């Protein structure tokens, strides 16, 4: 619950930023995710994060941050990102279509 309200807060902060800046920021942050998560819709064991709702992704990140969900890697990343950055990348990834390759 706290998680979602933090994210909602950042959404408001971002509302007056230009969409292009948000998209570039989201893409730059998503580039970091791409070192482990396939961003092509494929799902080879490390779960896909494409097309996930921003609320779900934000909640997951905060669960990693608080150690409620265990993972070294996701914990390091969740601790390194600000709430605002999590919201930005979550919005960006949600907007990408999940398109599984043939």
């Amino acid at each position: 619950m706290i998680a979602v309200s933090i994210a909602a807060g950042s959404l408001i902060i971002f509302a007056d930023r230009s969409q292009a800046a948000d998209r570039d920021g989201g893409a730059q942050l998503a580039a970091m995710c791409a070192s482990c998560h396939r961003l092509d819709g494929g799902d080879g064991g490390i779960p896909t994060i494409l097309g996930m709702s921003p609320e779900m992704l934000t909640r997951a990140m905060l669960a990693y941050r608080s150690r409620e969900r265990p993972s070294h890697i996701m914990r390091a990343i969740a601790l390194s990102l600000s709430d605002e950055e999590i919201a930005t990348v979550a919005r960006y990834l949600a907007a990408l279509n999940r398109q599984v390759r043939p």
Partner: protein
Amino acid sequence: MKSWTRREFGCLTGAMVLAGLGPRSAAGEASARVVVVGGGIGGATAAKYLAASARTIEVTLVEPKPDYTTCFFSNLYLAGLCSLESLTHGYETLAHRYGINVIHDFVTAIDPIAKTVGLRSGRILPYDRVVVAPGIAFNYDALAGYDEAATQVIPHAWNAGPQTQLLRRQLESMEDGGVFVLVAPPNPFRCPPAPYERASLVAYYFKQHKPRSRILILDAKDSFNSQDLFLDAWERHYPGMIEWLPAQFTGGIKAVDLRERSVKTASDTFKAAVANVIPPQMAGQLAQQIGLVDQSGWCPVDPITFESKLQPGIHVVGDAASAGDMPKSAFVANSQAKACAFAIVEALTGSERVSPHLFNTCYTFLSPDDAVSNAVSFKPAAGTIKIIDNFVSQVQESAETRHRAAREAQSWYAAFTRDTFG
């Protein structure tokens, strides 16, 4: 994995996530030129993210080899658990999907005043920025009796490809009961856990095929990365098979005798059935040649843009860079390359960038289904790069946790190589 990459060819993979990046210029606007030197992990990632982030930047990647074999997972190949083919990746996708001008040639000079890159073929490439990612070179002066020619008899296998193949063939033809002598290098070197992962996976191979054989690690150091995890695993999986001798015990490694296939330390001479000597390392030769290194032998860089502190306009990423607390790993090279690419795009196009996030993640195999991981985050601070958080596997973890890490490592390989080459 080469054929796999070809099959992927032309589809949207990877390009999708980058589709939103970068400013769009009016048609006909003059391009800025970036030349990337070295198509390894650092160079390929930098070229891809530069090309995908800004259409106004013309990206050229210079790499002598027609394709690239990853060092990561090459220890699995030594154990007979995968083919070298499956670890080999071509540059076709970078050329075709991202429009990168891939040139298979060797960079012999960089002129930072004229802003040109000179190739062995005689071609001269002008640039606005250049990214140098030549990886490592070996300091053969540091080890008597071991030089470039000696690597054909006693391989280092610290660049993947023919060297790894040679070592595998020697292991295959070794008789049961022989000693495999592995010489581990002093810090800093490419991939701190990798010599010990290699010992673990060679032990796995011996256990299956040559159970009377032994492994001797002669270390230039007195301790090593994740030592407790390795010692615990060696006890559990390969009892009595692996012996580790630190420098304080041997007095240090003094010389290699090619004919005898032996390694001399201050206290003893150790004869090997198969030897694997990993020499001391420094930044790739080109970096030495064009004045990018300081007295440490590595390239000092700005912690945010990865621009050389010694030569303006030249950026250095990957193993060659001296980047504070960041170790020399493929994950780090990939992470630095993205930060560097976004900084160059900002400098050349004036677009906005977010503050860089730098990470390292390493999966290390102790046996085929026992793997450990670590994850570290870094932050530019006080002119260098500092560790923020560091999470590592623990000795007491369950077999299930370790098994899961091994499976996750396989998925990571697929995602990571696609992020870099596809």
